[in-house]
């Protein structure tokens, strides 16, 4: 998976997947958010009902139509600095699982433009504490690959192995994998083998196979 997800990819995906009604709703919602940022509090939860929730192929990594719609709503916020951070934190804090995932996805896309810096990292850490595979996977997108420290990133990768999230869904793994992470993956594989349990195939991309 590439380390970047761009706004162009997101808007192209919406153009492919939105119905006319969905597109009209989203255009009106964007216009409202750009003039009245607090309106995002009621528009953000409604995005799935108006735009749909189906899986899409691009951007890669398990995106859905509502993730894409929520991303463009966040990108529309006429805010910077602490005001932007506070609004994004509120969307996450009061969001249901779909909204939380939308925020996590959006961080990767809007970060280069809106200059979030480290401000979204507490949200990633919250998501990585859950056992919800949708949130864990979204927290390990390009924003996580850029901003999570090594210890948190390694723990996130191990958590994917434990919960069955394909390693291919994690952004930046080829770049961020280090000796310590390989050791942790190897120990995980040994533990599974000792227990007579299945080892996910994708581990062997990073750990030397015992049969090799």
């Amino acid at each position, binding site marked *: 998976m590439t380390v970047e997800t761009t706004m162009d990819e997101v808007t192209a995906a919406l153009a492919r997947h939105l119905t006319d009604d969905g597109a009209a709703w989203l255009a009106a919602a964007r216009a409202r958010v750009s003039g009245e940022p607090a309106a995002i*509090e*009621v528009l953000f*939860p*409604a995005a*799935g*009902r108006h735009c749909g*929730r*189906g*899986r899409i192929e691009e951007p890669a990594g*398990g995106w*859905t*139509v*509502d*993730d894409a719609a929520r991303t463009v709503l966040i990108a529309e916020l006429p805010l910077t600095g602490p005001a932007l951070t506070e609004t994004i934190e509120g969307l996450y804090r*009061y969001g*249901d*699982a*779909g*909204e*939380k995932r939308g925020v996590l996805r959006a961080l990767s896309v809007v970060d280069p433009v809106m200059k979030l810096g480290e401000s979204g990292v507490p949200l990633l850490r919250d998501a990585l504490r*859950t*056992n*919800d*595979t*949708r949130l*864990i*996977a979204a927290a390990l997108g390009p924003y996580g690959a850029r901003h999570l420290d090594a210890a948190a990133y390694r723990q996130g990768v191990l*958590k*994917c192995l*434990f*919960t*069955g*999230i*394909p390693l291919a*869904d994690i952004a930046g793994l080829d770049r961020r994998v280090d000796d310590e992470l390989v050791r942790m993956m190897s120990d995980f594989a040994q533990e599974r083998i000792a227990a007579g349990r*299945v080892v*996910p*195939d994708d581990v062997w991309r990073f750990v030397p196979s015992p049969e090799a």
Partner: protein
Amino acid sequence: MAMRIFDPHIHMTSRTTDDYEAMRDAGVRAIVEPAFWLGQPRTSVGSFVDYFDGLVGWEPFRAGQFGIRHHCALALNPKEANDPRCAGVLDVLPRYLAKDGVVAVGEVGYDSMTPEEDEAFARQLRMAIEHDLPVLVHTPHRDKHAGTLRTLDVVRESGIAPERVIVDHLNELTVRPVLESGCWMAFSIYPDTKMDEVRMVRILQEYGTERMLVNSAADWGRSDPLKTRATGEAMLAAGFGEDDVDLVLWRNPVAFFAQSGRLDLSEQSEGDIDAAATFEGNSILRGARAG
């Protein structure tokens, strides 16, 4: 016989994955979990916020692992409406009533019929009208008959359409006034208290199957999440047809909660369950714990 079952009132937060498996095997495909008392009283708004987050986050995810669609009803319950430390729940509730999985306001109603309960009940009926949501109303265990009549008065005064209201936990003595009010009638089938499946069948024989709902109301007390199925079997044994069972256990609850416009009964293939959930069969189903 194969039954499709929608349990319109069950507290899955208090139940195990064994229950989810048994429910799925019995035919349960969709549920509504109303917000209620957890056995241990809460003392702050934050406790409710975390509970509501679970009902729109973790619990639907857990249910999805077993092929069951989870929806919820949210409210400040009548018992805890009496604690002034919890009154602020009503201020955060509107934000949650906008969520996708929230298909009703509930459980609201009376516990001890105090002035605080009057205020919370009336205010939440107004919220239901504002958010265009139906309502699930609990009737009190103590002084049930008088409490049910008073409940129907409050519902009438609120101006909400009776067909958008469920009055729950009914029995032989409270069913008729609810029937006459135009509200939906719900019965909680318990191992030994509120109502059992044999008595339920007699009520269906006497009052018919229209606007009738059957739930397990299973929670942290002695209760059984398969009582919906048991009621369906008791109906068949008493001579009801398969179509009658399907009406009571599926089409009635679907018709009621569809009034929210938010009921999602599609198969679990959309975005809320990632490929990860079934990746090589590895998931909560296999007991994986990320801790």
